[in-house]
């Protein structure tokens, strides 16, 4: 996910430098106010660097690695987590040339800001229901959102000739799948620490606040866009591809109210959007009901 030099237009790189400097600068100020243990940031950053070497193979002969943005946010809190991830990215850029100098602002934005803050607030929003599930969702959605931002940055750059749609779809889809492993590792670590040293995690607790709900709202608002993008590039479920290759045919016992995420008689895209809104409304309704039941 590290963007090298040459992939971004200078104007876009500059915008993300400014935004990252603002957020990282604000994080440093917040840490000073909260008197965070300074050594903790550096040493946890070194630990995250080590854990980032966890590689898993992906089709095509390459591999993906653990990023740990959401984990940093959960363990250190969003501000210290943001700084720790920034340190990791600076070392990777200046010692291993992994990630460009001009692209450093964008890389920090994706992996130290988006990944950390989205991951942290998702965890805080869901932890009361189940800590393991909350950590899994944080790890998974944090990395996927960061990947989507990477796609947006390179997609908007005229230096990179692939369209915005292609860049966002490829990054979002790949990391949506690969991010499951990120989520599993995050959940495993957080569950263990929560049982052995709950003070480490609980001391970073804060009310999710408007930002969390805002972030989740943005992700929900973006989801129809990805459905549209997937349709444009002809994406279909891997299982459906396999079934087609094997000549298997679908014989549903029950079609459901919204068959194949569509509304009978309506345009398929509008049907998908309505299905998405209905699904989100049902999940939110159940969540609200559970909260009221407490």
């Amino acid at each position, binding site marked *: 996910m590290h963007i090298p*030099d040459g992939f971004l237009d200078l104007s876009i790189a500059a915008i993300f430098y400014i935004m990252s400097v603002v957020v990282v600068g604000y994080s440093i100020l917040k840490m000073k106010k909260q008197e965070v243990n300074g050594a903790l940031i550096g040493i946890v950053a070194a630990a995250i*660097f080590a854990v980032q*070497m966890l590689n*898993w193979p992906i089709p095509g002969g390459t591999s993906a690695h653990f990023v740990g943005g959401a984990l940093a946010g959960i363990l250190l809190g969003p501000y210290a987590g943001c700084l720790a991830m*920034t340190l990791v990215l600076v070392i990777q850029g200046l010692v291993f040339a992994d990630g*460009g100098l001009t692209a450093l602002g964008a890389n920090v934005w994706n992996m130290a800001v988006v990944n950390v803050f989205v991951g942290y607030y998702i965890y805080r929003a869901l932890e009361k229901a189940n800590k393991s599930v909350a950590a899994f969702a944080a790890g998974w959605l944090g990395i996927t959102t960061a990947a989507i931002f990477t796609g947006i940055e390179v997609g908007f750059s005229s230096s990179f000739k692939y369209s915005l749609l292609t860049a966002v779809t490829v990054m979002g889809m790949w990391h949506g799948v690969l991010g499951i492993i990120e989520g599993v590792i995050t959940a495993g*670590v957080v569950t263990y620490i929560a049982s*052995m*040293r709950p003070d480490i995690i609980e001391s970073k607790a804060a009310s999710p606040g408007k930002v969390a709900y805002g972030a989740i709202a943005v992700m929900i608002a973006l989801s129809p866009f990805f459905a549209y993008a997937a349709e444009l590039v002809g994406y279909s479920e891997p299982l459906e591809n396999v079934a087609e290759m094997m000549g298997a045919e679908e014989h549903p016992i029950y079609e459901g109210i919204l068959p194949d995420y569509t509304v009978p008689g309506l345009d398929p895209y509008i049907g998908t959007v309505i299905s998405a809104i209905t699904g989100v409304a049902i999940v939110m309704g159940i969540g609200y009901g559970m909260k009221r039941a407490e």
Partner: protein
Amino acid sequence: MHELIERSIKEASHYFQNFFIHDYGRPGFLHRVDARIKLLGTFLLVVLAVSTFDVTKILAIFTSCLVLAAFSGIGVLKVLKRIWLFTLFSFLIVLPLSISLRFEDVLYVLLFTLRVATSLTAIQILILSTPFNDVVYAMRGLRFPEAFVSGLWLAYRYIILMFTELMRVMLARESRRMTRGSHMEVWRKGGESLGLFFIRTFERAERVQLAMKARGEKVIAFKGSFSKLDKIYIIFMAAVTLWWIVI
């Protein structure tokens, strides 16, 4: 899958232990240039390389980088050995765009790759001629916030130790494992091991913080005026920039 993940950590640990004790080559003039200027000079070279698709301008920067590598004792071959992988990766990403075989598409793919290669060359020259400690001191000299610089300095210094710690945790787990266990069991135990690793990290950080307070440790900033070599480097960078503008 989990065995591959475990193996990757072991391989990475060995790699980094060797990487961090690598030599910086035969010291040439670039090794003695002030790290503050080198940091800014490298940034300038990268900006010049990625802000154009003009073949002569990119080649001018690429040539300048190779001249720097050749005359500073680093060696062109050593730099090329370090940049080929990322360059190839970038080439393969944009290669499908040249499938039409139209001249402008093929040229775009080549220039895109050359821009990436040039930027990587500039960064590798900095890496190979400047110990990271000097880069950190230079950042402090350039007025980067102290919390940022001291965090960076600590993170760099503790990377090998954290790798060793992680290896120790994994080795202990392996020695306790009597049976292969189910996949779920392996993932659960793996999560516990990493959790333990992070708990140890927190405890170590608390001890280090106390020790630092007792000693009063602080990152030293690069200060002072520039030497004759620094001025020569500045003139070289100014000439390269002028060349880039004129051609």
